């Protein structure tokens, strides 16, 4: 099994450029605004998939509750937009003007305290990053300090996703309930419902995604990134090398949560609403499937996986709505059984050697900092060739 955690610099740069070209040039040139907005929506899920690559692929922490963090980010953004859409003039027919319509329907007469910060755009941006990180910190600290891991952790995150959904649906007056927060109109006075706004938001989202990929690549290349891999492999060895393993797990879990929340916020902006159907168990598991199909060890693979599964979902569910879930399940089983490293693993096995050869032709001598594996003249029992 090859690990894609430490790609050589040049290859990952080229890979990122290819992806950037695809989402910044090819998609906008080939798709109409409706389809482009749809791709933009898919790409918001890719933020979650990136977090899962670090958290699950590299560090071995499987979370089945990433939808919660996606949702928290989305709700933070939706709360800001909703307050902007609920100015006293726009809501003067309500019995309490100036509060969101669903609060008025639920007989609330004043804005709840936790909605207050969302009058401010800078505070909202801060909340998008920090609120999910805070929740992740509480769960992470409670679990990892007690050395709860593996499947138990996965089950607890899943329970957390269920709890969040029930909470949001149940507290209708504060959250908008099952309908979510809808009828969002403007961002700082800029109408987000027009075609041109959707076009611009697509690019904002795309650039944010590329920025996040770069950030994740950087994290993966630091010693922190190598410790994540080391922890997945031999947790005790890391602990007995003087590291507090739980802190590393908490950090990567919080980091993944914040990434997911950025995606959630961009989802709200591009789709124009947020609802509990993006928070619960089913979307959380779907997000894991995107990551698995793309390859849980590869950041770029996860983005392609997200695009591919969603494209398949859209095309299949348009033609065979009742069969789609079986298709998704089948795809997941196929990947787990046959291609444990997903699309990225297939690429690594079949296409990468050719790409390497091609690149080698372009530039004769790649910088050979370290002797390549398997070519040493060991006199002891020789290691198996790759």
């Amino acid at each position, binding site marked *: 099994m090859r690990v894609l955690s430490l790609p050589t610099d040049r290859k990952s740069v080229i890979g990122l450029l290819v992806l950037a070209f695809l989402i910044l040039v090819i998609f906008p040139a080939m798709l109409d605004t409706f389809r482009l907005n749809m791709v933009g929506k898919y790409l918001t899920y890719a933020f979650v998939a990136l977090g899962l690559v670090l958290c699950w692929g590299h560090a071995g922490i499987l979370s089945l509750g990433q939808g919660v963090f996606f949702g928290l980010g989305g709700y933070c953004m939706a709360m800001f937009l909703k307050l902007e859409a609920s100015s006293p003039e726009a809501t003067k027919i309500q019995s309490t003007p100036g509060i969101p319509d669903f609060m008025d329907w639920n007989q609330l007469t004043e804005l709840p305290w936790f909605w207050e910060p969302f009058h401010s755009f800078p505070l909202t941006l801060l909340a998008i990053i920090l609120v999910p990180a805070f929740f992740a910190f509480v769960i992470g600290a409670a679990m990892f300090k007690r050395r709860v891991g593996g499947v138990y952790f996965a089950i607890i995150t899943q329970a957390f996703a269920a709890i969040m959904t029930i909470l949001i649906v149940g507290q209708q007056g504060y959250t908008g309930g099952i309908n979510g927060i809808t009828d969002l109109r403007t961002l700082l006075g800029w109408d987000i419902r027009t075609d041109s706004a959707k076009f611009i938001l697509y690019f904002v989202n795309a650039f944010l995604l590329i920025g996040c990929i770069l950030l994740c690549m950087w994290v993966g290349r*630091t010693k*922190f990134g190598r410790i994540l891999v080391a922890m997945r492999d031999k947790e005790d060895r890391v*602990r*007995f090398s*003087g*590291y507090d393993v739980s802190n590393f797990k908490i950090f990567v879990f919080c980091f993944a949560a914040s990434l997911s929340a950025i995606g959630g916020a961009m989802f709200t902006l591009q789709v124009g609403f947020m609802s509990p159907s993006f928070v619960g168990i089913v979307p959380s598991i779907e997000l894991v499937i995107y990551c698995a199909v793309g390859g849980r060890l590869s950041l770029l693979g996860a983005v392609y996986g997200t695009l591919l599964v969603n494209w398949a979902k859209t095309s299949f569910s348009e033609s065979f709505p009742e069969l789609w879930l079986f298709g998704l399940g089948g795809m997941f089983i196929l990947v787990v059984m046959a291609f444990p490293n997903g699309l990225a693993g297939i690429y690594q096995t079949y296409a990468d050697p050719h790409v390497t050869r091609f690149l080698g032709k372009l530039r004769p001598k790649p910088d050979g900092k370290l*002797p390549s594996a398997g070519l040493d*003249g060991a006199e*002891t029992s020789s*290691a198996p060739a790759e």
Partner: protein
Amino acid sequence: MSETDFVLAVESLGVSFDGFKAVDDLTFYVNENEIRVIIGPNGAGKTTVLDLICGRTKSTSGSIKFKGLELTRMKEHEIVRAGVGRKFQNPSIYEDLTVFENLEISFPRGRTVFGALAFKRDAQVRARVEEIAETIFLSEHLGMRAEYLSHGQKQWLEIGMLLIQEPELLMLDEPVAGMSVSERKKTAELLNKIIKNRSVLVIEHDMKFVEDIAHKVTVLHQGKMIAEGPMERVKADPKVIEVYLGH
């Protein structure tokens, strides 16, 4: 009660699992620069003693003092940072990383989350990793993924990962188990090289190897110490012969 010039002072140490006393009222002291070997039949509690010292298992009674620090109340990573290194019985290395990266992770700098994010592979780190690799006969393999090393090389790599931490007390659990004769010889040579300026606590079954390296031997049987002293004396002890060396 404990004297401060001992590097390690284990006193009336005990641990029981569901009433079974794995280690029972154990007391021993390790001097500076001493190589102490713990021997005893299977199930005597040897590995448990190492687990207790490095914090993997919590004791139910007694005390473990390392340079005056009470280890029984410290967390694993704090014990490591205080200067206690531990090698596991099965080679415990990071198979997905290269030999260089394995050693680098053990280099005692940047051990917090943000320290690890800011960690730079500078000349000092490189020089130290190369120096250790030389000592553990792996200079040629720095860029190789650790999973492709032979069993013996993996054992050396783990020893190297401990050396780079510069522990004052080094604990090795069966360092030559499963090694070929030539590898075993090289390991003895390696151990003799690395014991300078530190105390070493070794668990080993290979009597020839024990005789080669041990200054003093502690014999455990059913969680209790039954003999202690230089190898020649312990070897002649009728109790030791009965429970361990006899068969």
